[in-house]
């Protein structure tokens, strides 16, 4: 089995590492910040990150350096950095580990980012359920402030960066960057239409960068070891660096695995994850969180980089790989995910709001053996009417499980509908739609 160098998880896997400031400093923490403040100009930092080829680790994979470069330099008012720590994509649990086990790595990344984009205020929008993470981050911010890494006149350089931890209130949609900004402003978390983009009209309509926890955690390493070093890892030229993949489902060893981008899924699932839990054959897997379309055993040799997964008809997304073994009903899997999306649709756009309940009820009927032959056509059409017609990507996300299971396992739907026609269940068996 190949061994890969760990970058983000390195510290926390050292025995006895607590994530305290002292531990982080012993592991050469905040050296990147010292270097930046002493030796670098903001533009140089942005250039270094561009060179590294670092792409957003939240889901969309937008190049981080390019995003920072969109921030207007001559803007007279305040600028903001928001760390998206609202990790709520089903099957994804990497940010949580980064925050709980090595919070200063990410904080250092944030201060450097603020320096690069000229922001004096940064917010960590952390998922409300992450009570422990919130506590740890608040402590870490306090520690760093006391030590002079955060606050006014950082390390005597004159730089001011204040970081605030803001817990969300339990809405999946607040992981979408514009909904996150709305929520942070104290409003109902609903996405804004784009353009204008947050880079020019973000938090309080000011220029804002929103970056994922993992993205920011990579910054100190890029500064310490150089953009070129980072770019040499992974699958060049477009998928550089390592990534933490969250492996879950019917595998022997679920968990977070930091590997260079571009290894095949087979290696993650069978070598690192130890293969299938009950040694049944693999039936399906989700490559990048619940919003990513399902892939099949035929895709096991697809490389885990942004482009290859896209070519295979799915997306690398948030890095949550969920594996399902033979015997899993794909209709049930789609239904289970649809229940999630129905519950989380914010209700702003008509197609998503109304479509999610329509899709859910149709799936419930099919699964409950109340399906009708025309239902498959209705599902396909509804999915087509939702995807691409909403403000945010939630529309595409909620139809992904249905579209992909219909593509690969259409027969399972057809079988259930055929059985429904044959058995005609008694009335009491009909599942009732409940809110």
């Amino acid at each position, binding site marked *: 089995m190949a061994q890969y160098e760990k970058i983000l998880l390195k510290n926390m896997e050292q025995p006895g590492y607590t994530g305290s400031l002292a531990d982080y400093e012993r592991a050469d923490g905040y050296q990147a910040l010292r270097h930046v403040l002493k030796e670098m100009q903001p533009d140089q930092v942005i250039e270094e990150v561009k060179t590294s080829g670092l792409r957003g680790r939240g889901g969309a994979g937008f190049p981080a350096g390019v995003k920072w470069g969109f921030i207007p330099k001559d803007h007279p008012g305040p600028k903001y950095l928001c760390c998206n720590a609202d990790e709520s994509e089903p099957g994804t649990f990497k940010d949580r580990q980064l925050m709980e086990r090595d919070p200063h790595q990410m904080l250092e990344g944030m201060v450097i980012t603020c320096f690069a984009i000229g922001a004096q205020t940064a917010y960590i929008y952390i998922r409300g359920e992450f009570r422990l993470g919130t506590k740890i981050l608040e402590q870490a911010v306090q520690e760093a402030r006391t030590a002079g890494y955060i606050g006014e006149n950082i390390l005597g350089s004159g730089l001011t960066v204040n970081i605030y931890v803001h817990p969300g209130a339990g809405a999946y949609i607040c992981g979408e960057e514009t909904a996150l900004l709305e929520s942070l402003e104290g409003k109902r978390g609903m996405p804004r*239409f784009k353009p204008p983009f947050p880079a020019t009209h973000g938090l309080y309509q000011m220029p804002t960068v929103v970056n994922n926890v993992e993205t920011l955690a990579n910054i100190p390493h890029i500064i310490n070891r150089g953009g070129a070093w980072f770019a040499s890892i992974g699958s060049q030229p477009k998928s550089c660096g390592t990534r933490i993949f969250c492996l879950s489902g019917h595998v022997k060893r679920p968990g977070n695995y930091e590997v260079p981008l571009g290894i095949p899924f087979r290696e993650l699932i069978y070598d690192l994850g130890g293969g299938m839990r009950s040694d049944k054959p693999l039936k399906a897997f989700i490559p990048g969180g619940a919003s990513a379309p399902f892939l099949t055993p035929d895709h096991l040799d697809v490389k885990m980089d942004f482009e290859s997964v896209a070519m295979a008809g799915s997306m690398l997304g948030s890095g949550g790989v969920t594996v399902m073994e033979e015997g899993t009903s794909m209709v049930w899997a789609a239904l289970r995910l649809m229940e999630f999306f129905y519950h989380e649709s914010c209700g702003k756009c008509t197609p998503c709001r*109304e479509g999610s309940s*329509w899709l859910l009820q149709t799936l419930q009927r099919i699964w409950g053996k109340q399906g009708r032959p025309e239902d498959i056509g209705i599902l396909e059409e509804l999915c087509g009417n939702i995807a691409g*017609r909403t*403000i945010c990507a939630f529309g595409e996300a909620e139809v992904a499980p249905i579209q992909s299971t219909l593509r690969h396992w259409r027969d399972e739907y057809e079988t259930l509908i055929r059985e429904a026609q044959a058995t005609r269940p008694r009335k009491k068996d009909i599942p009732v739609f409940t*809110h």
Partner: protein
Amino acid sequence: MAASTTTDMITLTIDGKTATVPKDTLVIEAARQVGVMVPHFCYHPKLSPDANCRMCLVEIEKMPRLQTSCSTPVAEGMVVKSESSAQAQDARKSVLDFILANHPLDCPVCDQGGRCDLQDFSHEYTATTSRFNELKRVFQKEFFSPLIETQMNRCVQCLRCVRYCDQVMDVKALAPVGRGTLTEIKAFGTHELDCEFCGGCVQICPVGAITSRLSMYEFRPWMLKRTDSVCGFCGDGCQITFQTKNETLIEVNSTHGAGRNNGDLCARGYFGYHVSVHPDRLTTPLIREGSVFREVTWEEALELVAQRLSEIKTTHGPDAIGGLITGRCTNEDVYVFQKFMRGVIGTNRIDSSVRYGHLNGVHAMQRVQGTHRWTVNFEDVVSADVLLLVGTNITETNPITGLKVKEAVKRHGAKLITIETLEPAIGAISNIVNLSQHHLGVKPTAYGSAILGMLKGVIEQNGIDPDLQTMAPEYCKDITAHIQAISWSEIEEQTGLTSSLFEKAAKVFVQGLKAVILIGSGVLRTSGGFGMTVNLLDLLLMTGKLTKEGCGLAPLAEENNDQGTFEMGGIGAMLPGGKSLGDTEARNMFSQAWGRTVSDLPGSSLPQMIEEATNGNLKSLFIVGENPLASLPPSSGIHQALGNLEFLVCQELFMTETAQQAHVVLPACSYAEKDGTFTNTEGHIQPVRKAIEPVGESRPDWEVFSALSVGMDDPMEYLDVKEIGKEIRNLLPGMRTLGPAPLPAQPDSSAISRYVNSDYKRDLSARYQLPPRMSSGQGHVVLMVSQSLFHSGKFSLKAKGLMQIQSEGKLFLHPKDAVRLGFDEGDRIRVFNGLGEVYTKVAFRERTPEGVVVFPEHFDREIRRLLPYTVDPETQVPYCKLAEIQLGKIVAS
């Protein structure tokens, strides 16, 4: 768009039609301009785009997917396909499919049926069958409020109501609650809707999700007859549309883009229309017989009035008869009334409700700038960069002018300075000081001191206009000397504010390029009101803003036609057109035109008439729509004055306190039943149109005056209102200009020059001294009797909708005061001072400052006994809105 050059214009094609529009125009608006109607629910020109309904999707060349035309700005050479795009048409169809999936399809019982966007678009796009075979989500019906009902199953979640409530009204009473398909519009929190009740959410809802309870189930939209008219409550002059069915008033609304209000209304305008059809309306003329009234015919009543007035005129001379008319009448009514009084009776003893305060503003403007109207209009308020509000929670007195202030501050970043008693606090009613950047919170007795503080701030920062210093050095020197004689410590003591607050506010004011000062009843109706208004004009003069385009003073008219009543000669000493009675040329002009000599004996104000009646010189009063017994406190002597009269005629809608004392009561029409014009607070003359037939035997006021003149053998006959209008127009050219927007009056340089060269001296020392400190004893608080948003005078107490919102007066006080005094919310307490003692309920309001209590004037039947009464020596305006009082618990005996 004179300034736009070719670079600011953008050319694009929409469905093959070429549109050239200004840069930043949205595609949906550009399409509308070339006649392409893009269907939409959530878009509204008044609101910022939200792009949530997805109905307005269009195909734009070179863009990857369908775009919402409501949120996409135009770009040069853009090619947009709406109706010509199969993809867009398909998307719209699917959006309707989605909306209708959960819609109850209860059109037969929906008040919106027939004027519903969802119905119309469904008709245009959707197949007649739906493939939605699942369960519809159902919201339980909930009690939302006494006036507004929500039927959330019909809602399309476009959030127009929520955005309107926030962006336009600044109230934020509504919020979407729940997620996804369970999203519904509710009041914030778990209580029923408690807001300004502007009705905006009802008006802006594209479907039947939010409806008015006042008209629920009473009509189908296509049965309604529409009559465009003007609201009869405050001076804002909002255009309203009466919707009637078979002579019944069903509802009132206003269309986006209509009138000075641009379709926005307030609670009074939207829910107050039942005042015209209240069952208490007088329907026949009444003649007093002993202690009861007998119903009589118009002939009998008119004959008696004509005969008695003629007798009194013969016996005691024409000046034994006085007239009093309300500022709620039309211009034509007031014109004919004063012509009747001056021409037929032969007296200038005429007064009107303009006297209660608006006159202070008008006289001050006449004195300093030579106009009797504003030199600014609503557009100037919206585009102002500095607004100074003095003595007005404008939201409550003039809500629509208030919206212009909100628009200026919220959308255009104007700086707001307020000299106000109410403090910033979140409450059910939007409090204009919440938006203020420089709030000078003073007691209602200290407005004058605060104005002097502003002037001192200007002078100390060398804010005096250099041109003025050259033109009128003495004026500048005198004012500076008087101001400098007042020390900051004295001003600080009087206002309770530090000098730095005044300095900051004064700096902002001086820097303003377009500065408008709006003043309300706090200035106009409290002691020293005239002087304060003149001082504010001094402030404009000194900073060089009085004659500057877009700058000016704007006294807010309280009643719908206060401004017109003044302009039509509703004040004895002022002839129509704002000319002084002392102006011989003007008097001769009217004498000649009317064929009757206008007396040169000066008229009397209402306070003077009270005096004259008390000492027996005034024998008869002809009161039209006024109710002085309810408007003035007993301390004014009004009871005794009316009791002394030989003959009192009241022409009224209702049997008011004053009408009960009358010898003859004549039933008049309300504004919904007659034609004419109202002049709003900006001086804009707008047509009032008859929406329903007169109630009972009531008649338009001018008809009665005309009939009386016939009875007195001196006929002034008119065929209709148009004929009166023609006469006014001929006498006063430019007086009856009807148009979309008023041209503001221009300051008269000769008047300004007269003022700065000599006239200012006349009362300079009186105006530039701090008022004597009220000797507040221990436990004394200031009672302020003021207007509520939900009522207008005593008139609106007959509007059932408004009474459902506010049906009684409570004494509002700060919770801390209440704790100190040991009161609980809703307690009945004792309010007393040297004038008497009354009992009333208390309610807590955070915005009422400590040491001040507020009572709504509409319910002051009892509490006005405590109000002292003084009269302005110059303008004869009666002041009776403030009192020093004490509060106590009711001790059980």
